[in-house]
């Protein structure tokens, strides 16, 4: 007779605890939303625009042993065509015989047009905290901003592109490292947080299409623009993995998968993140 009563009491206490936790959650969430709103109210307060401007200048600056600029770089719509190019990336490039995301393609242009080594660049491709985004990141910010207000429309229908998306999906669910984490550990459910940071549900199109188009973004906690390649490295860092190589097939595949998930989502670069 006693047992059901005890179970009932435990259940009641659990329900009360959950109700309290939910009230606190709602309050915390409200405060965070206010902060986000303040960041959004004046879009020109986004320091990322400075890097986009720097990127635009770098695009036309001659450099390297070949003393050339990026102006003949083919981002998929023909040499020098920048407007709307980001909205159709990643894509397969026959000249490189590879699927490439924006940053990987910019590295290719840097090497082929300017004669500067990609292998050297990827040794330290991302800024430390407080340092401005590096050259390729600045150019990527500018190029991506030239697709702002457009929708993601990468076709991803060639066999190489389909393989990249499939590999990206596999890697999204692949557990790695001593913490057993996968991308899916944090991004396969809606409405969850790490500490107070909300986590987008990237395994689902609705949330993915809201957030993927905000990268490259100025990240307030790092005080610099972070590109998608850098963002992925940061996830793998948290997963206790080694440094993800910029432009690697795995990185391109993950970006291809995420872009596929974000299909139809609006591009708003540079984004502004906590």
């Amino acid at each position, binding site marked *: 007779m006693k047992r059901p009563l005890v179970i009932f009491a435990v259940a009641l206490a659990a329900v009360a605890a959950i109700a309290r936790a939910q009230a606190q959650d709602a309050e915390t969430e409200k405060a965070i939303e206010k902060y986000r709103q303040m960041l959004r109210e004046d879009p020109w307060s986004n320091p990322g625009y400075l890097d986009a401007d720097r990127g635009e200048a770098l695009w036309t600056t001659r450099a390297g042993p070949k003393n050339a600029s990026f102006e003949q770089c083919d981002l998929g719509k023909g040499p020098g065509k920048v407007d709307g190019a980001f909205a159709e990336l990643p894509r397969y490039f026959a000249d490189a015989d590879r699927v490439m995301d924006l940053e990987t393609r910019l590295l290719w242009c840097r090497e082929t047009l300017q004669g500067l080594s990609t292998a050297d660049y990827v040794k330290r491709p991302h800024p430390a905290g407080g340092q401005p985004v590096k050259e390729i990141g600045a150019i990527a910010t500018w190029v991506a901003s030239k697709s702002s207000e457009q929708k993601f429309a990468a076709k991803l229908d060639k066999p190489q592109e389909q393989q990249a998306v499939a590999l990206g999906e596999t890697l999204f669910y692949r557990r*790695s490292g001593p913490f057993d984490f996968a991308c899916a550990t944090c991004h396969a459910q809606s409405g969850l947080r790490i500490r107070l940071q909300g986590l987008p549900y990237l395994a689902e199109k609705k949330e993915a299409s809201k957030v993927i188009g905000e990268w490259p973004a100025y990240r307030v906690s790092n005080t610099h623009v972070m590109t998608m390649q850098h963002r992925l490295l940061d996830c793998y860092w948290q997963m206790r993995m080694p440094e993800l190589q910029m432009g690697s097939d*795995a990185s391109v595949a993950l970006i291809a998968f995420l872009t596929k998930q974000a299909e139809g989502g609006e591009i708003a670069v540079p984004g502004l993140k906590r």
Partner: protein
Amino acid sequence: MRLTFAILALSFATVPALAQQKVDPARADAAIKAAFPTAPADWASRLTGDETMQQCSASHNSPAKDIASAIQKRELATVVYPPDNNFIGDWQKGERLAQSGYGLRFTDDPPRQPNGGNCYACHQLTKKEVSYGTLGPSLAEYGKLRDFKPEAVKAAYEKIYNSHVALPCSTMPRFGANKILTVEQIRDAVALLMSPESPVNTGK
């Protein structure tokens, strides 16, 4: 009859899509290996993962029954208990390690402090700490809700040591089995959850 037909049609419709999605595991392994060229030699196992991880990845964390029991059996065998079966350490130390996310990242090498458990990243624990994540369930009043029972103390130790014993393909790290935390540290984390004086249970 109509239902059977519908199911048949559905399975025919989904088969080609799935076949297209299939990625040769060797290809995924090779892509990961190539993507982390700076991995130190003793980090090689981080790139491949063990059998449990592979089974959880392949099933998107929903293993079939027989695989789930194989995982449970395999993971239970990894659990090392404290020598005197004294599971409860120091809750204050437990609170400190629950706050710390330090350890095993490439920027943490060589180690400058003990690894943390980073419990607050995913769980609510004490009332005082409002910056907690929600990837895991709330652990507020954890011991109190379990009447501080000895079985619950042991179960808490096992969950932290190796979460797959209680829930195959749990998303929680295997803190003991993967040597993220020491047995001593896990005892401190158990104290945070299970000792009556811990603020997790007093609500202070």
